[in-house]
């Protein structure tokens, strides 16, 4: 099982903050997870546009080529604006 989480605009457009996604071998690629989620509907597609989307794998900002394994927490969010 993967834990999928969203924050800020991404969370608002998606309409929920987190859910579980049963792991499949093809989900070892972040792009496969993203396009699977984006195919849900137009809003999700918009929320998960790659441009400016940041990914954190297990709470660490990670590049798109990071390999995902069962049990990982994958977060999608816009550039951070704290401070």
């Amino acid at each position, binding site marked *: 099982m993967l834990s999928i989480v969203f924050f800020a605009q991404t969370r608002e457009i998606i309409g929920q903050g987190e859910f579980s996604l049963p792991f499949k071998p093809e989900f070892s690629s972040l792009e496969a997870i993203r396009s699977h989620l984006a195919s849900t509907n137009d809003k999700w597609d918009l929320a998960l546009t790659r441009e400016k989307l940041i990914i954190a794998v297990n*709470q660490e900002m990670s590049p798109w080529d990071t390999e995902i394994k069962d049990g990982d927490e994958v977060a999608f969010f816009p550039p951070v604006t704290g401070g």
Partner: protein
Amino acid sequence: MIKVQTEDFDIGALYQQIIASENNPLGYGAVITFVGKVRDFNQEQTVSALSLEHYPGMTEKVLNEISQQAMQRWPIAQPIIIHRVGDLQPGDQIVYIGVASAHRKAAFEACEFLIDYLKTKAPFWKKEKADDGYHWVDARESDQEAASKWATND
């Protein structure tokens, strides 16, 4: 010390904590503090309220990491980093960074490094209430540039 909290923080009390730092209190000749506050404007719009969201768990992890990085790069005491989340008003304090060192140059650099990295690496997001309603704050190019000047090759 790293804290993410909804409560306000007290500058005088935090200063006492820094200078009481256990490893070498009498050797620290320079203490620099940075406080970030909610401004009543942003990008030429009037701001009447602010809401701060974060990624619990990851936030503390990132703040600890940049704190460790600062201690590796400069001879400083353990920094104090406090960041508020939740609903804030113009004038409210958002973030506190306190750094002590034997000499001021290290303290200035480490403090600036910490806020530059916090602004680009710690998962906080601001939503502002302006004249035309709520909207998420855009990340600033200038913050990326400020952070990139601290990049190392290792």
